[in-house]
């Protein structure tokens, strides 16, 4: 109603000079008028200018005296016109606050004689205070002294009155249009879309999350790595066998039986099935011999090789166990060079912490061909890692029981400002390859790294359990961006 009044008035008039007057004239609550003005101003229907006025209003006490009269007059009127009244009796006649203030004020004004007996000193008095209060209440101005005296007795307080003067704004219309939040079928059918005013889009609002599916961050990285391997001409090895025998996991790789890695504190051994059902017997003989006494140009380890150790089943500790099966299969056919890779789960019986889990994914690549050199390994590593964005590499001599030479791969991390280890690599030992039956001039170069570490570095995750497992936050999976590894 106030809105129509204001907009209607402005249609024919330049401005509303005083919102207070405007409200009073039309019987509106000024607060309602103020709210309407603010809202219209927000949508630029009107331009509003602030007006401020200082006024005085009565305090609670002031309002009381305006109604009942000031306490000194009340007291005066309680004292008889003739004679006197005892102070105690006077006190009983009046309100305690009225009595107290009345006594002091009446005394100050010399209206009464104060003592054990109280009597009038003058005949009549005017209730100036009450008059002044009524004047203030009615909005009349007072002199400075009058204001001071009332203020001193805390009967009035100042109040700022805020109002507006109002003119037409740039978006002025005689009637406000309601802003639509969306365009609907009804709008189009009714045809009212032509007159609709639309609420502005808030591009900073989060809005409803889109409903859809999401792939797991680790597996997005895996897909990219798989593509990288395929582009480099590598074939994927079948790795869907978590249960492996110690023979394929360790012995075939020339890892000695008394090696610390074969301890139960590093490896998960199986209670069921506890031992492998079969092994290729001829091959096992050759492996036993090379461990015990060498051959194929080697001294061997010189210890007693035990079949029971080799028979023990475990959860594979590396995908190199699969690689050794693949190489053995390759050796059984007329030789053809091969490039293999795999990315799959391995199991380590290690303490779990921020960066280590009992299960994780190993990435492995190997090249099997005649005449391969360490230079070829370095070259393939440069190719592979440069596709992951790591082109500054350094190699450090290392030790693996099944590779010789062995190299740890370091890459320069610009962010950390230092060299970090990114993988392990080497050439498989002849003691591993020759008992398989591979030709003597065939060398196998291989390398491996974990899938989790580069993923954590890429996405800035510092606790591996936030990425992988059931304690992961689904929101993280949903928010995770696409993986562009391998795409320059």
């Amino acid at each position, binding site marked *: 109603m106030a809105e129509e009044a204001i907009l209607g008035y402005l249609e024919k008039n330049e401005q509303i000079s005083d919102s207070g007057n405007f409200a009073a004239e039309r019987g509106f609550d000024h607060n309602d008028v103020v709210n309407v003005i603010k809202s219209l101003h927000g949508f630029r229907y009107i331009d509003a200018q602030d007006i401020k006025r200082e006024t005085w209003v009565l305090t609670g006490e002031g309002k009381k005296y305006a109604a009942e009269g000031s306490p000194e007059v009340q007291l005066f009127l309680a004292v008889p016109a003739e004679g006197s009244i005892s102070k105690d009796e006077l006190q009983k006649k009046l309100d305690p606050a009225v009595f107290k203030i009345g006594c002091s004020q009446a005394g100050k004004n010399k209206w009464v004689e104060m003592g054990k007996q109280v009597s009038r000193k003058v005949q009549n008095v005017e209730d100036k205070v009450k008059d002044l209060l009524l004047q203030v209440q009615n909005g009349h101005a007072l002199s400075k002294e009058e204001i001071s005296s009332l203020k001193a007795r805390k009967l009035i307080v100042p109040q700022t009155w805020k109002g507006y003067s109002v003119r037409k704004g740039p978006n002025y219309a005689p009637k406000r249009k309601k802003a639509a939040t969306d365009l609907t079928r009804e709008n189009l059918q009714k045809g009212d879309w032509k007159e609709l005013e639309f609420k502005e889009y808030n591009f900073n609002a989060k809005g409803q999350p*889109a*409903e859809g599916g999401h792939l797991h961050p680790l597996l997005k990285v895996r897909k990219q790595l798989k593509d990288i391997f395929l*582009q480099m001409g590598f074939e994927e090895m079948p790795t869907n066998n978590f249960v492996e025998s110690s023979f394929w996991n360790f012995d075939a790789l020339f890892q000695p039986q008394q090696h610390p890695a074969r301890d139960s504190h590093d490896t998960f051994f199986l209670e069921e099935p506890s031992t492998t059902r079969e092994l290729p017997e001829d091959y096992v003989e050759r492996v036993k011999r090379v461990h015990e006494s060498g051959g194929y140009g080697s001294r061997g380890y010189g210890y007693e090789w035990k079949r029971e150790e080799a028979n023990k089943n475990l959860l594979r500790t590396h995908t190199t166990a699969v690689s050794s099966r693949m190489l053995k299969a390759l050796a059984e056919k007329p030789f053809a060079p091969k490039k293999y890779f795999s990315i799959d789960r391995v199991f380590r019986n290690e303490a779990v912490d921020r960066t280590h889990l009992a299960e994780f994914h190993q990435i492995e690549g190997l090249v099997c061909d005649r005449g391969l*050199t360490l230079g*070829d390994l370095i070259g393939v590593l440069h190719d592979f890692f440069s596709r992951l964005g790591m082109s500054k590499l350094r190699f450090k001599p290392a030790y693996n029981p099944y590779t010789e030479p062995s190299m740890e791969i370091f890459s320069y991390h610009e962010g950390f400002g230092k060299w970090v280890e990114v993988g392990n690599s080497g050439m498989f030992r002849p003691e591993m390859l020759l008992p398989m039956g591979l030709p003597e001039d065939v060398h196998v170069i291989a390398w491996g790294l974990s899938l989790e570490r580069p993923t954590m570095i890429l996405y800035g995750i510092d606790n591996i359990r936030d990425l992988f497992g059931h304690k992961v936050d689904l929101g993280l999976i949903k928010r995770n961006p*696409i993986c562009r590894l391998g*795409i320059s």
Partner: protein
Amino acid sequence: MPTVSVGRDRLFAALGKSYTKEEFEDLCFCFGIELDDVTTEKAIIRKEKHLDEEGDENDEEVIYKIEVPANRYDLLCLEGIAQALRVFNKQQEIPKYTLSDVSKDSMLQMHVKPETSSIRPYVVCAVLRDISFDEASYNSFIDLQDKLHQNICRRRTLVAIGTHDLDTLQGPFTYEALPPSHINFVPLKQTRDFTADELMEFYKSDLKLKKYLHIIENSPLYPVLYDQNRTVLSLPPIINGAHSAITLKTKNVFIECTATDLTKAKIVLNTMVTIFSEYCKRKYQVEPVEVVYADGRSYVYPDLSAYNMEVSLSYINHTIGVSLEAEEVTSLLNRMQLHAERSASGNNQWNINVLVPPTRSDVLHPCDVMEDVAIAYGYNNIPKRKPASVKPLALNEFSDLMRLEIAMNGFTEVLTWILCSSKEISTMLNRQTDESTAVVGNPRTSDFEVVRTTLMPGILKTIGHNKDHPKPIKIYEVGDVVLLDEKKDVGASCRRRLAALYCGANSGFEVIYLTVLTKNFTCELNNC
């Protein structure tokens, strides 16, 4: 990977020069070991006792914790590391280890009783004559035994080392296996004597030793070593006797290693004597001991013979991928403590004759020699040979990733015509005609007038033909449009575009906005 703690200053003194931390790390990197941690003696003790850091550490001895390869038992102490690095830096020749010239008759003897075969069959021994220990080398001697026990000895199960002050004993010695109650002696760190079974009980509460009791506990006979006066040298693998304990003042050391694995026992003995013979008056010389078995077989230990290996130069070059001369290779191998000489083999080829010293039990096959050549040459100096491979097309790979993400948000992919009418890319879209449009000169019908400059007509027409399809309809297309382009030789180029459309009872702007523009893509779309 075993870690060895060495005093930094003592190490540098042994190397004959001081390095900065970076220089030393670099040296380690090239050689194949790693400086794992830098700490101080007191900090280690504080850590063990779970105490807090205390004040000034400046005058505390700096300790370097160095990680060494698991198969290099010769690097398990400061002396071994220092020697390897000195030879690597060409500051020292490879030491030549020899047995001192003692006649068979005057050689100390260890007689092995047959009962030992049931519990711990083998023993090897040696003597270090005229040795001088100081506090540091003494501690190093003890620590090395500890490290060997933990690593190759597999926590004393395979081999146990006993070291004794020879001057407190009198040979010949015997190695026997007796019932526990028959064995009586004062063990190390104790003042009264115990029988062996009393000791087993006693050590059940000893944190360090209780781990080893199981090795002999259940045997009816325990292994034990005696000298001629029936003084007990040791009860392997548990504890030595106090009588023959080594002190700083010890001048002659008797070492015995009892074992279930003879190969490893020999390696352990060789490691101990080669490294610490450095402190003998006659440097690198070890006095032999004869071990005599009950059946009369006898062996002289230590067996310091070098292992001879012939490796062809072409094998080394062709496996590493370099072309080194024979002289270069021998000098590189000498730096790795492998004594090497070239010798000619038939048809102008060279062979490298390598004498593998007793300290290098890790060298089993020519490939180990080849690796050492590569290390001394420097892995990072080897030229790389790039393999054949293919690279992906970034734009297409990226497009496919985007297509997948949008489909996962519930949008259906459409594939529409590239050719369309000129109205469809102008007035029908409420737009001005685009000046950069490629126009077909001979279209059969208006459907082939222009090459699309935007994906909009296609997706809009798709909706037009699917008006009855249940709503909301969410479709998208990723594809190329053509715009005129003076920078191209032909005057026009393709641009990759993504268009997504929502059709329903409301405008659904936020669906498009959130799906396409936010969160899923970390790149700027206008790069396409």
